[in-house]
């Protein structure tokens, strides 16, 4: 990457909180949606996570597990019939749940950038991508007029968009899926945020394009000192990108820890099942399938949401959701799991 990349224009990410405090800390988040039949259902329950500066957390799960709602909650973008009903979201020393909309707008896009799966939806189809980036730069008071336009081209170049000056004058529909996602990344980073939330940023892309986008995110993360909350259903993407992983199921984080430890010795039966059912490249070998289906919102079972599909189910699993247990031992450092098998009282060991 060239030295006159746009981030040279900024001093390092300025943060207010002390250096050892997490950049983002979510505690006890609950986000509830009112369903068509009038019932309330929690899409996210008692969710806690933290992210340090420069760290990447992979939030993984299947459709409907609440991972995208978690991202929207952190950005305070949950729209009715959804609402946040409990918890704290402390970003750089401030609880986002206590801020009003004008204050949030100074954080969204400026301090927390975001990239979604569908760049075609997130980008405005009637403006050129250069204008959209320049406008974002201007809104956040970083540059104006011609300088903002120049900044937009620089960011497109940083996102490795070929011929950035020409592409800046094009509309989203004129770009391929991969280029659109690069433009989206340029847009997300152009205000030099400290945290980037990327929700399935490569899911709609072909595998070779995905690899390029992941490389780009990795490089930008390093050069900008970004913290990255990477939301995906692909365990391979997590393994390649993240320092820590949080596995979600039925609106809760069921397991959390360093990627290598969790993938090497998964503690929760769901994590174990998810890893076991991946194709393992042995022709003819049967995959180890998890029976049943992923529960949808409004149909999360009482107790542990995974209980109906779990081979290790205990009696208490269907009664009330298990609490969070910190794992002990060498392989347990920095790991938590939400499973009765690992609670000291039930004698499940671990």
């Amino acid at each position, binding site marked *: 990457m060239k030295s006159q990349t746009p981030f040279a224009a900024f001093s390092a990410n300025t943060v207010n909180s002390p250096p050892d405090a997490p950049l983002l800390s979510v505690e006890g988040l609950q986000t509830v949606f009112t369903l068509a039949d009038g019932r309330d259902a929690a899409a996210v329950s008692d969710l806690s996570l933290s992210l340090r500066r420069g760290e990447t957390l992979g939030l993984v799960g299947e459709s409907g597990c609440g991972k995208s709602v978690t991202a929207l909650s952190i950005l305070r973008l949950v729209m009715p019939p959804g609402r946040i009903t409990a918890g704290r979201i402390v970003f750089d020393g401030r609880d986002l749940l206590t801020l009003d909309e004008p204050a949030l707008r100074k954080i969204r896009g400026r301090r927390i950038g975001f990239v979604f799966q569908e760049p075609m939806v997130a980008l405005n189809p009637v403006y050129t991508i250069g204008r959209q980036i320049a406008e974002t730069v201007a809104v956040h008071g970083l540059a104006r007029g011609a300088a903002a336009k120049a900044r937009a081209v620089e960011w497109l170049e940083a996102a490795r968009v070929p011929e950035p000056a020409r592409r800046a004058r094009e509309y989203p529909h004129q770009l391929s899926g991969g280029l659109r996602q690069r433009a989206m990344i340029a847009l997300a980073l152009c205000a030099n945020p400290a945290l980037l939330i990327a929700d399935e940023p490569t899911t709609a892309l072909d595998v070779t394009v995905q690899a390029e986008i992941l490389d780009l995110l990795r490089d930008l993360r390093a050069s900008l000192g970004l913290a990255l909350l990477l939301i995906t*259903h692909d365990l391979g993407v997590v393994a390649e990108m993240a320092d820590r992983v949080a596995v979600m199921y039925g609106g809760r984080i069921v397991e959390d820890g360093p990627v290598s430890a969790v993938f090497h010795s998964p503690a929760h039966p769901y994590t174990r*099942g*998810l890893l076991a059912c991946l*194709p393992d490249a042995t022709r003819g070998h049967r995959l180890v399938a*998890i029976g049943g289906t992923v529960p949808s919102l409004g149909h999360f079972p009482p107790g542990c949401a995974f209980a109906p599909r779990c081979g290790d189910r205990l009696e208490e699993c269907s009664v009330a959701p298990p609490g969070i247990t910190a794992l002990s031992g060498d392989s347990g450092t920095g790991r938590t799991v939400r499973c009765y098998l690992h609670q000291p009282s039930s004698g499940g060991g671990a």
Partner: protein
Amino acid sequence: MTPLLAVSHLVRDFKRGGWLRGGGTVRAVDDVSFDVRQGETFGLVGESGCGKTTTGRCILRLIEPTSGQVVFRGTDLATLNARNLRRARRDLQIVFQDPYSSLNPRMRVGAIVEEPLIIHRIGTRDERKARAAELFGLVGLDPAHAGRFPHEFSGGQRQRIGLARALALNPSLVIADEPVSALDVSVQAQVVNLLQDLQTRLGLTYLFIAHDLRLVRQVCDRVAVMYRGRIVEMAPAEALFGAPAHPYTRALLSAVPRVSPEDRTVRVVFDHEAFRPLALREVATDHLAAVE
């Protein structure tokens, strides 16, 4: 041994869309030839737009080929009239990617599974009902649910319904076009296992069209890699994944994110500009690649 399906020199051109773009044609499938042998799973892989889906549909003539031959059990499907084509299609079925749009939302699932039997005028009403119940059991669904509508089922269950419909006429070849890519990871394995069980039980042959290389490696005996409408490499799965010969195949394989660090490979980047459509040649026994 004569192959069950022999595709040779298949070509399909599409008119470039929209009056603004000023016409012209795009060759979506460009001189594609391959054989599918009785009882095997043949994988057709590539990225979006490579022509793999169009190839699958040209075989069934859901899309008419521009030129080329599709010989199935000794008959060239490309030359059949509508009536004989319908007859031939009994033996040649397809499972689509999207279990949400490929089932008629207004039909009960029992009727969806029975429909091929009605179209081909097979059996009495009671016999068809019994056959539908049998098919439900075969794909792991409760026959008692035949009166329900598609929206009452999950994605994985809908894919089972699509599979039951495809199997209604006892086909020998099933074209499975991205059969699990719309499903959750934990449900994909169930459907993949079902496909493999059915293959063993019914002696099915699969043409498996997919973009997920991990999955293709798991289920396919032989694999062809498509790029820009052409097959650039074709080999037994073990050889293709173990010793890829074409630079595009190498790039594709190296781009797959790996879960275990031991599996990681050095990334290979393919120079799309430098691509030249070369003829396939044998680089090892049964292993063809479009290389110099």
